[in-house]
């Protein structure tokens, strides 16, 4: 129990160096003083596309989160060392819980944007589908060790599908579910590695290959870290664009998508602050 408290404080102290709202982070630490946490993902995209007409496929299939290749999570904390687990966000009993900042909240067992998941002594991340105009596959709001808001991950499923279709059209055989799992895992990695900057000298957008060299929020850095990891900054992992302008890609993606966060020094798995 005590060890757990220290670890949580360490986590938030580091995050606090990166954000202005140190006080809020500290409140978060106090609330999360608890046993070793589990971690779960609430999938708000688990909505049938057109159930009335027989299309029961989900906007974000749950298998994209429970996919065995996407979330073995050997280095990820969680129930029985199984890493992340899925909690169906649209099910659950209605409860009232007391939130330290806003008072009593009523709703479904996990259907709160603010705080409730943390009150259950678990870490939670929320995945929602998006149509935002950002030209990205997915993006993340906030670290997981912040009680003021659950980390939200927005994912553009059609964009992932387009990427998979493109690579499959040129000879790869990527599985869409595995690809979605990789993208979601990458974002979940951000929620945990929020405070990790692998290359502090590079500021956002100040050099032409910043994605490859930035290293912010746990991103891997070209030339320093393994490509076969969820935290490689490109999708599919392994790919490196034409950096020297010779008209050829500097590296093609791996034939098979990665299945885990890396563990080699200073691998992602060594950087977890949740349940080391």
């Amino acid at each position, binding site marked *: 129990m005590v060890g757990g408290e220290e670890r949580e404080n360490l986590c938030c102290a580091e995050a606090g160096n990166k954000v202005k709202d140190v006080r809020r982070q500290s409140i978060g630490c106090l609330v999360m003083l608890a046993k070793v946490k589990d971690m779960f993902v*609430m999938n*708000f*995209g688990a*909505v049938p*596309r*057109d159930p*009335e*007409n*027989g*299309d029961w496929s989900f*906007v974000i299939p749950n298998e994209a989160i429970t996919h065995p290749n996407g979330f073995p999570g050997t280095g990820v904390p969680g129930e029985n060392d199984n890493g992340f687990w899925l909690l169906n*966000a*649209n099910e659950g009993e209605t409860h009232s819980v007391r939130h330290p900042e806003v008072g009593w909240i009523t709703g479904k067992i996990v*259907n*709160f*944007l603010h705080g409730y998941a943390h009150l259950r002594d678990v870490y939670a991340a929320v995945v*929602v*589908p*998006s*149509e*935002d*105009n*950002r*030209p*990205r*596959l997915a*993006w*993340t*709001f*906030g670290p997981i060790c912040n009680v003021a*808001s659950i980390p939200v991950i*927005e994912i553009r499923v*059609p*964009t*992932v599908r*387009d*990427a998979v279709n*493109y*690579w499959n059209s040129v000879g790869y055989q990527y599985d869409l579910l595995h690809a979605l799992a990789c*993208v979601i895992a*990458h*974002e979940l990695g*951000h929620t945990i590695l929020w405070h990790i900057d692998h290359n502090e000298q590079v500021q*956002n957008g100040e050099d032409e*290959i*910043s*994605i*490859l060299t*930035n290293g*912010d*929020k746990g*991103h891997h850095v070209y030339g320093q870290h393994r490509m076969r990891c969820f935290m490689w*900054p*490109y*999708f*599919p992992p392994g*790919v490196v*664009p034409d950096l020297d302008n010779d008209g050829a*890609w500097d590296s093609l*993606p791996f034939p098979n998508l990665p299945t885990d966060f890396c563990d080699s020094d200073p691998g992602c798995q060594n950087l977890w602050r949740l349940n080391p």
Partner: protein
Amino acid sequence: MRKVAWITTIVFALSSFCLSSPPGGYPRPPRANAEAEEKLKEAYAAYVQGQYQKAIRLSLEVYEKYGDVEAKWFPSWVRRVVKGHLPDPYNKNEVLGRTIESGFLFTMAIRSTFPSYLLARCYNALGDDKETARWAAELRKWVYGDEIMLVFSLPYPSGYVKPSAPRNTWRPLPLKFREEDYFILVPLDQACKVLGIPFQYKVNPKTGKRTGAKIGEKGLISLMGRPFARNIRGEVDDMAYAPYEEDGVVWVPFYWLAKQAGIRWWEVRNGKIYVAPKQGTK
């Protein structure tokens, strides 16, 4: 022309690599005022419906007057589905919160755009490399590093534009239509007949109400307030505007049906929908 095709291919190929996913929090364009918002809504609809020149004109008007401002809105169909108060589309926390609390996917229903994004996309669709590069550079204010490439790899709702027959040879379709949020909507029965697309309504046997329609053998659209759809090949091909039924008439975005029928060039002129010759049916 060959050069344009080659560049497009390279850009597409390259762009498929650049799918990084950094955390949120990077700069967004400033919020559009009411006038800019309305023009950007119109420009967005023009872009989706393949009217790229119109989208460019409107986007440039906004850009020159107000700069690169961002409009966000909920399409009118959302108000048919969601009873009561809608979240403020510019308030990200409220949109996320309501998505999580209500189960309705506000994050997917919301539309947003800004001039440099539309201009880069439209010029690229037209094959204008010079202007594409110019607006891609402008986009770099808001787009993270190499993700700029992704702007050009996403498929276009109405495809690229190739040369077509002169407009004076286009023919009008005997089809009534209505305009909503600048989208051209047509009656499904009438449109499918005119375009030669087989279709069949799906009806809930318990209520007797229409729930959707099969388009061809494998296509599927919903009439339950969702823009989710599958095209005539059975592939996921969601709409930019959700179909709906009103007084027994099912209204569907024409651009989507036109695509299913193989129509690439069309426009509204003198109160009628005109299509290029030999493009009317498939």
